[in-house]
């Protein structure tokens, strides 16, 4: 199921902020990452794709359906699994009841089959033991897992997950990333996040959103190469290098070893090192920010 976005703009209110600015993007079947800083427009894009917001301009076709039309939106929502960034739950319901409620709204009618599907997903997200507890007693991570389960209820062909690993502990995060990758196969899985590691571990293809526009579209390797010859290791007991962006700072003997993304060596003792995806992202965002005037 392909997503084709052309000239998409979204402005909140008359004269309000332009959250998406003439965005063009094609997302193929499989796992696709959407990376960007907070406020880059990722959540707005996800909400437009889920049919929750109407575009101000431009078109969005998902599997050939125009989400701006009522029939198109309905057709998309019938194959959609959506995990919003700020997932809320009804505290008075148990985990099992909440999933059953959403399953009914998604059109899973037959009682035994629906209950079986709910049970399978509770098992998948390791909540079987807590399934009959009220959601008010769930931790943030458990609620997130309920959110993941509800997104998978109708065996969706399109899965839109917005910051899915926020609030998960490292083990849960790894398990969820693996699950997403397994689900991709014949589905389109759109993973929106500001956590570079989540993309690095799950996606081949990705886009970077900055200031409501696509700043990059390509493979993980291509984004990583954006920082080629721009990543440096500097070990010093003095202050951090002034030039470039400090990616990390690790105590090393008597000094601190800085990893810096900069166009030129930030210090005399700087040693070039191989870039990672995070370096590539920082190199790119630094460039696009200076081009578009943000940040």
């Amino acid at each position, binding site marked *: 199921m392909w997503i084709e976005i052309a000239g998409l703009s979204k402005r909140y209110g008359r004269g309000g902020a332009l959250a998406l600015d003439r965005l063009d993007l094609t997302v193929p079947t499989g796992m696709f990452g959407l990376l960007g800083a907070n406020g880059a427009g990722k959540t707005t894009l996800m*909400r437009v794709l*889920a*049919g*929750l*917001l*109407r575009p101000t301009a431009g078109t969005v076709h998902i599997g050939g359906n125009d989400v701006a039309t009522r029939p198109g939106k*309905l057709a998309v*929502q*019938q194959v*959609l699994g*959506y995990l*919003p960034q*700020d*997932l*809320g*739950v*009804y*505290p*008075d*319901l148990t985990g099992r*009841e909440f999933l059953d*409620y*959403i399953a*009914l*709204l*998604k*059109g899973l009618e037959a009682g035994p089959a629906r209950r079986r599907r709910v049970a399978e997903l509770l098992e998948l997200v390791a909540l079987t033991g807590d399934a009959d507890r009220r959601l008010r007693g769930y931790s943030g991570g458990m609620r997130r897992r309920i959110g993941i389960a*509800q997104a998978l209820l109708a065996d969706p062909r399109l899965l839109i997950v917005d910051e899915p690993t926020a609030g998960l502990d490292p083990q849960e995060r790894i398990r969820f990333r693996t699950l997403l990758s397994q689900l991709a196969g014949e589905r389109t899985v759109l993973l929106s996040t500001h956590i570079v590691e989540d993309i690095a571990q799950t996606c081949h293809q990705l886009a970077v959103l900055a200031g409501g526009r696509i700043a990059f579209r390509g493979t993980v390797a291509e984004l990583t190469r954006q920082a080629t010859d721009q990543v440096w290791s500097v070990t010093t007991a003095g202050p951090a290098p002034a030039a470039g962006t400090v990616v990390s700072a690790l105590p090393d003997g008597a000094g601190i070893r800085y990893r810096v993304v900069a166009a030129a060596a930030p210090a005399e003792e700087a040693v070039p090192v191989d870039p990672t995806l995070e370096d590539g992202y920082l190199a790119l965002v630094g460039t696009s920010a200076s081009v578009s005037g943000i940040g």
Partner: protein
Amino acid sequence: MIAAARYEWRMLLRRRAMWVSMGSVAALLALVAARQVSDEVRTGTAKDVMVSTAYLVNLVLPAAYGCVLADRLIRSAKLGVAQLLDATPAPATGRMVGSYLGVCAAAAVPPALLYFGFAGLYAGLTGTPAALGWALAAFATVLLPAVLFVGAFALVVPLVLPLPLFCVLYVGYWFWGNAVSPALLPTLTQTLLTPVGGYPLQGLFGWYGPDGTLAISGPVPHATLNALRPAATPGTAWLSIAVLLAAAALALATTAALRARTRTR
């Protein structure tokens, strides 16, 4: 629609605040009206007892359940569930109607327990099973239309008014519009729009209080809004019920249309 009705019903029944508030009001009612009810039990027929009890229950309990229902529609947005529900293929209007029916069904449970509990006790102690039939008729024509009318406005008005303000205004409205005499000040009391059930009580059951002089429907000399106070007859009783249900439907339909226009902006 059925899914929303089922789960909204379940969630409201689990809400402790509903049982505490309605229980407190019911206890207060029992305390204040004990003497009146016992007089009615001693001297009245089964019909009189059931109808007068329906009036008492309907005079005070809606003040409590109107406030209890007030957060039901706005809650989904506050909890962050609304966007999840909106991303499903279930139509928003169907969900809203389902929520309405579910919460109204749940709100009717405490009055029903109180009322039918009393009716069962009365029927058992006096050996008059007909009381249960009268109770059923009074519940369907007096208490139920009130639940449906109050439920609709309690759900939709807080979409445009802060919840605490709604509760204060609603309780004020309830006693102004249902209990204050039109002879004292302009009020909706005794009009067709009065959900306390004056028209069905007098037009369908011919109940005018223990001494036959109670005025809870119909025109009042020199009062304003008498155009809305035709004499109580079976016809005007059904008209009053129809007006209340139509007003509820209109409130829901208007809200559904407005929400459909603004939801995806």
